[in-house]
């Protein structure tokens, strides 16, 4: 049973990302999108918990949302992969279920 978790809120505005990371099971995937992409950036106060989670879950970020906000892949925490909308669909299709953290 492998789930895809989506987080679309900024980690500084809401606790969605932290709540998600504290509940994901090993082997699950987490996709950061919309304002959630700020959680994928290196050097922020939110980065540490994401870096810790990367040991047991896969973390993705939606490239379109990252670009819209002015950040390139070079600003991402190491180990996070970029997907586009088609990749998002693939992740959702491959997962047994999708769980959204609003």
């Amino acid at each position: 049973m492998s789930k895809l978790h989506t987080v679309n809120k900024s980690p500084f505005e809401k606790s969605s990302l932290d709540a998600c990371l504290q509940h994901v099971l090993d082997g699950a995937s987490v996709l950061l999108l919309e304002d959630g992409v700020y959680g994928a950036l290196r050097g922020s106060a939110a980065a540490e918990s994401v870096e810790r989670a990367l040991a047991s879950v896969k973390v993705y970020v939606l490239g379109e949302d990252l670009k819209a906000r002015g950040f390139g892949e070079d600003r991402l925490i190491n180990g996070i992969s970029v997907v586009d909308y088609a990749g998002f669909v693939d992740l959702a299709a491959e997962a047994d279920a999708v769980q959204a953290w609003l």
Partner: protein
Amino acid sequence: MSATIKKFLYLNRKAPYGTIYAWESLEVVLIGAAFDQDVSLAFVDDGVYQLTKGQDTTGIGMKNFSPTYAALGDYDVKKIFVEKESLEERGLTLDDLQHLTWEDEDEDYAEKDSIALVSRAEMAALMGESDIVFSF
């Protein structure tokens, strides 16, 4: 025309695109600029994300309004305060933000910086001395 000039502070605390607040604030600032008041803009918390360089919204199908911040100088909005601690918490520096300027007509259109980096304490003081704070 009112004789008393009031100090207006537009307080921006939201990231762009995820919600409508950032764009709404910008529109209100541009409309409000017609009334000769003492206007300051503050970018605090996620609001600092509004000013990042290189925004490209073609992929998300939304209007990229980041170029509009560069028009603020034309609207006589010359005081833009960015909170240092908010940038640092997000792993950002002033270099990640647009370089916003205004042109001094009296000095042959000399370009002057609009953005000032201030500490949280200075930001608190700025809020304290404002007559009216518009929160976005």
